[in-house]
């Protein structure tokens, strides 16, 4: 039981990072990014490629992966999504447009990635030794991935909570209209948030690829999980995202170990269903008045 709890927490920590990326994109930039999972897979691919081709540690690869993902996502926002924001008449219209556009992007990315890397699974063995915690042993790569994910998540939280740039971002998340009134460049902040979200997600992908077998089309599964976490924690709520990610990690590990490893999505759905029925505003969200 204790073993399941720790394994779940380790998994949940990485999920938290991925969901934080999505939350920045959805909460601040107001773009429901369904190509988020593909960004994750691309990050994983990059780590895989760097490790197998150059024997460079996937952790060192983050120094390149994160900035590249930032630039790519920033450009995606400026070129693809900004026109949609501009032409949208309502929040609902923007949602439909961005869902369709990012679905398009997602399929195009899967197509390109399976063309570049083939359709097969890919994984590599990095830090595959075991490490003992409280009498049970865990994969070292999982522990390392969790630690790095926690560091980045903590840094992001501090940055959002205590810096001016973070404050601007939170202001846009709460209300873009009012943020504009106090002199915040909403477009620039949104683009920054979207780029940052993409970078965080790709980092999560590189971390998860250390212990998880990925393939070109697995992205949608991660998008799904990240969306469930964001909704469960409440859109725009970092604390909620972290708690929800840990809950999902534990629930998934529990179902995989105790019932059947093929039912992980079902576990996520049970949580999702509970949220939809009882707290649609998220765990820490306030009821809309």
């Amino acid at each position, binding site marked *: 039981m204790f073993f399941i709890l720790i394994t779940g927490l380790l998994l949940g920590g990485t999920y938290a990072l991925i969901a934080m990326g999505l939350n920045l994109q959805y909460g601040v930039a107001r773009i*429901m990014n369904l190509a988020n999972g593909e960004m994750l897979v691309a990050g994983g691919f990059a780590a895989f490629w760097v490790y197998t081709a150059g024997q460079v540690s996937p952790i060192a690869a983050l120094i390149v992966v994160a900035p590249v993902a930032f630039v790519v996502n920033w450009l995606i926002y400026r070129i693809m999504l900004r026109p949609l924001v501009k032409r949208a008449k309502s929040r609902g219209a923007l949602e439909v447009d961005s869902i369709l556009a990012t679905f398009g992007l997602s399929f195009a990315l899967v*197509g390109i990635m399976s063309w570049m890397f083939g359709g097969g699974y890919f994984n590599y063995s990095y830090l595959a030794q075991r490490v003992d915690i409280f009498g049970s042993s865990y994969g070292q790569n999982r522990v390392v991935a969790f630690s790095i994910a926690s560091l980045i998540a903590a840094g992001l939280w501090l940055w959002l909570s205590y810096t001016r740039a973070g404050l601007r971002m939170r202001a846009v998340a709460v209300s873009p209209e009012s943020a504009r009134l106090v002199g915040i460049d909403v477009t620039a902040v949104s683009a920054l948030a979207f780029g940052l979200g993409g970078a965080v997600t790709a980092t999560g992908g590189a971390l998860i690829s250390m212990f998880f077998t990925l393939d070109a089309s697995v992205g949608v599964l991660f998008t799904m999980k990240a969306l469930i976490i964001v909704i469960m924690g409440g859109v725009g709520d970092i604390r909620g995202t972290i708690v929800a990610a840990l809950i999902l990690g534990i629930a998934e590990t529990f179902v995989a170990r105790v019932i059947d490893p*093929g039912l992980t999505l079902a576990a996520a759905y049970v949580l999702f269903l509970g949220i939809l029925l009882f707290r649609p505003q998220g765990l820490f969200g306030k009821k809309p008045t």
Partner: protein
Amino acid sequence: MSTRDIRNLILSALAFGVVALLPFYDTGYILSIATTMAMFTVLATSWALFSGPTHYISLATAAFFGLGTFVTGYGFQTMPYWSLPMIAAVLGAGLAGLVGMVTLRLSGVYFVIFTLGLAELVRQLVTWVQNRTGQRGMYVLTSITESHIYWQLLGMAALVFLVGWLIGRSRLGFALRIIGNDETVAKHSGINTALAKVLLFMVSGAAAATVGAMLAPRYIYIEPSTAFAPLLSFQVVIMALLGGTGRLWGPLAGVIPFTLLWEFISRHAPNQTLLLLGLAFLLIVYVLPGGVVGLQARLKRRFGQGGH
């Protein structure tokens, strides 16, 4: 009924009659493509019945479709064949009702996310049950030929068009159009918005499940991973949106070109079908919002022909 309605009805009946003669001309490749088109016509049109007026994007088609194929797979030996599509319809409507009740009282985003994983969820559950009972995929060996499937689908298409036409004229259709324009207004004018949406979603779920039940004999061998392939949902969305959901015939205008294109690409560059799908989505958002129907409306306005 106005004379216009009667004229349209007669023209549609004639068109169906002509299309139904196809198996006498060819039972090979052309019929196989036509069957695929008929399948997507039913799926896309019934999808648009719900998503057109409400603007809710449903990605659940594959879940209903898979459910239908499994009904035929389990039932074709023990039950009369004609009853299977009906059982599938009832189950499809039931599943849609459940999903709708949970998600449709909330905003559209929850609905998209929930339906996005629904096919995969049902697949996992079915696989799990099969593993526990020690069962694998199953063979559906029947005397049903491609021509029979084709005629069944045509009948189903006619039914869906008829239902769509009736809904468009009914109070339910009127209510849905108001919901699609402004849900708050709809609520304030006393429309039970959640109920209207759930009812329509059930219609579209029933239709997709029926199509699955009809098509099961075509696949011969059924297993969860092929029956619940999530790609189907996206193909249906793309075809309906390419055609446009503003009119009943809209999806048809997307189904025909896209099926041909898909067929061509999967023959010559099978790895590029996903790229095609992605580009088609982007095309709809950036170039063709409203699909062919929207384009036609814009052209009409520009050249000032055909008064409405």
